[in-house]
């Protein structure tokens, strides 16, 4: 929801970044305020996934220019774990499997790390179990997934739901959803979208990175940005996504 007096959450200016020596981001500007939902769309290779990984601090991506401030801090001066503790969350496009680490153990470890950062008490396993059983309803997941190794043997949809479960437990200020809709059937998409919607508040924000307009029927964005060639080339409201769905991306590329 757009509100005039909301705080600036993320401000990216003229961001340039390389991966493997190749410049992918060539001057990205983006401002996200608390309470807003943004969608970043674009064809494969436009730089939208790179943008989300750069914000989260993936070690393979190198910032070569520009600035980003997040909740008043210089984002690029922070390690990935410090960004997480400051309230940044990335839902992965391809969630990793971690055999031997149970889902509930990871969630509790991550949750307690953030509690400590916020100056709050850690939860013991029993207290945490109560919390996580509430949160798991958000993504309509069977509690048996908590005892299993992280993402091991999960279907594509279950992995994406697991990412949103982590988001529900960690309650980030800014969640970046990197192609969270890819590989989801219509039921899973609805569940994931409902989960995200239920977590939205006037104090947090969401940036969805997606190829398709489909997700935006369920999570309605305040802004839609189109990325092409490592830049944001067009920004509009939710109707821009519908236009893209109808006309494709070519007309924008020609215009840019």
């Amino acid at each position: 929801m757009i509100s005039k007096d909301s705080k600036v959450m993320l401000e990216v200016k003229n961001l340039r970044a390389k991966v493997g020596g190749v410049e992918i981001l060539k001057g990205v500007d983006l401002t996200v305020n608390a309470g807003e939902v943004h969608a970043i769309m674009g064809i494969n290779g436009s730089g939208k996934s790179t943008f989300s990984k750069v914000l989260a601090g993936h070690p393979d991506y190198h910032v070569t220019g520009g600035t980003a401030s997040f909740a008043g801090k210089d984002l690029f001066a922070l390690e990935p774990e410090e960004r997480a503790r400051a309230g940044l969350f990335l839902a992965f496009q391809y969630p990793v499997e971690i055999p031997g680490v149970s889902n509930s153990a990871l969630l509790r470890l991550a949750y307690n790390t953030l509690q400590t950062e916020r100056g709050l008490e850690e939860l013991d396993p029993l207290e945490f179990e109560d919390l996580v059983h509430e949160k798991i309803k958000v993504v309509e997941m069977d509690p048996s997934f908590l005892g299993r190794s992280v993402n091991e043997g999960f279907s594509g949809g279950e992995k994406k739901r697991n990412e949103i479960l982590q988001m529900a437990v960690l309650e980030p200020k800014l969640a970046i959803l990197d192609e969270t809709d890819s590989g989801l059937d219509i039921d899973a998409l609805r569940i994931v979208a409902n989960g995200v919607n239920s977590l939205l508040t006037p104090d947090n924000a969401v940036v969805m990175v997606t190829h398709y307009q489909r997700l935006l029927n369920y999570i309605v964005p305040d802004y839609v940005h189109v990325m092409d060639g490592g830049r944001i080339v067009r920004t509009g409201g939710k109707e821009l996504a519908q236009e893209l769905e109808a006309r494709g991306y070519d007309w924008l590329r020609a215009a840019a």
Partner: protein
Amino acid sequence: MSTKEQCFEQLLLGKVVRSNGWLDDIRVDALARAQALKFPSDRDDDWRFTDLSALFQHSFQPVDSFARLTLTDIEKYLIPGAIRLVFVDGCYAAELSDLSQAGAGVTVTSLVDCFVPDRLGDQMVETNFGRYAPYQQDAFVALNTNFFEDGAWVHVAREVTTPVHLLHVATKRESASAIYPRSMVVMEPASRATLVEDYIGLDDGIYFTNAVTEVVLKDGAHLQHVRVQRECTSAFHIGHCSVDAGRDSVYASTSLAFGARVSRHTLHVTQRGEGAEMHLDGLALVAGRQIADTHTLVDHAVPRGKSIQLHKCIADGSAHAVFSGKIIVHVGATGSDSAQSSRNLLLSDKARIDTQPQLEIFNDDVSCKHGATIGQIDADALFFLKSRGLTEERARNLLTHAFAAEIIVKIPVPSLVESLGKTILERMNGERK
């Protein structure tokens, strides 16, 4: 500082306990073999990856007096409800042991007690002792056979649900000492038991544990054998276990090496009866300047034998882990089914892991698979955990622990699984301090 020869000569000066006729004959024979064999050289194929020079620098003295310990000293290593034999620096400590759970069908006692003629089990011990561990070919086994002070005698006649815990405790002494734990296990037909052999060091002492275990599985016997080596990181540990597996017996082994400056464990399983089944799991976790070597040999000597093996090494710092797993399918051992997997994790640029799967097959009608991998901490998993707020160190520890957990969680003693989880964390954190 001593040389290799001086170190060996000093060991030969150890204290010899003479007991009765038949055992003295074996001991004399073993001593002669030790003198002839001497320490292995680095040209010896079985030892070429393993640098023993740190061991040779010390002059190990026989243990002449025994440390008095209380249960509090070893509290964190105890397994609640187990039948427990405790040895302190190689000597049986009755006051720390607990045999109250040993009922009908299981005998657990000090080995020396069985050497007294007409004592319970003396005939069985005489029939089996020294018949399986190869003191004729292995100098360390020969030294143990001559110099062992006492040991454990475990005899299982039926299904026993209470685990048997053999706890070997080393204490810090004024001079470096040589300790010779010895165990003899006989499983009667169709019996079943869980055995935990546990080697621990209480303070950071320099000592040399040279341990030998013999296991006899009669037809249809089933043994879960857990071996834990968590000596002090300044200690030395050379262990040998020989297993003789009868018809349709099951031997499930989990062998863990966490401690010692230099350690070597040799496990030799002979499938003597048809249809015997082996499950061999192993884990070596080393850091700093540690060296851990695991050698296993499975002899498929008769038809229809099965062996499934998973060995993992984790090396941090400038540590070195060695795994050699040999599987021999002899002529006539038709229908043998064998699978071996060696998986390894290197945590630093200076660490080293050598893995050597070896299959020797003298047969057509067999199924043998093996594979080996060496890798580092998965970068994607590491980034994922950091993106959830975990520090680099916490994330690496979690992933390392998870890699080790696959072996640990199979141990059928929950309190031990928990205590080993803590041991792993202590070892990993100790390295980074």
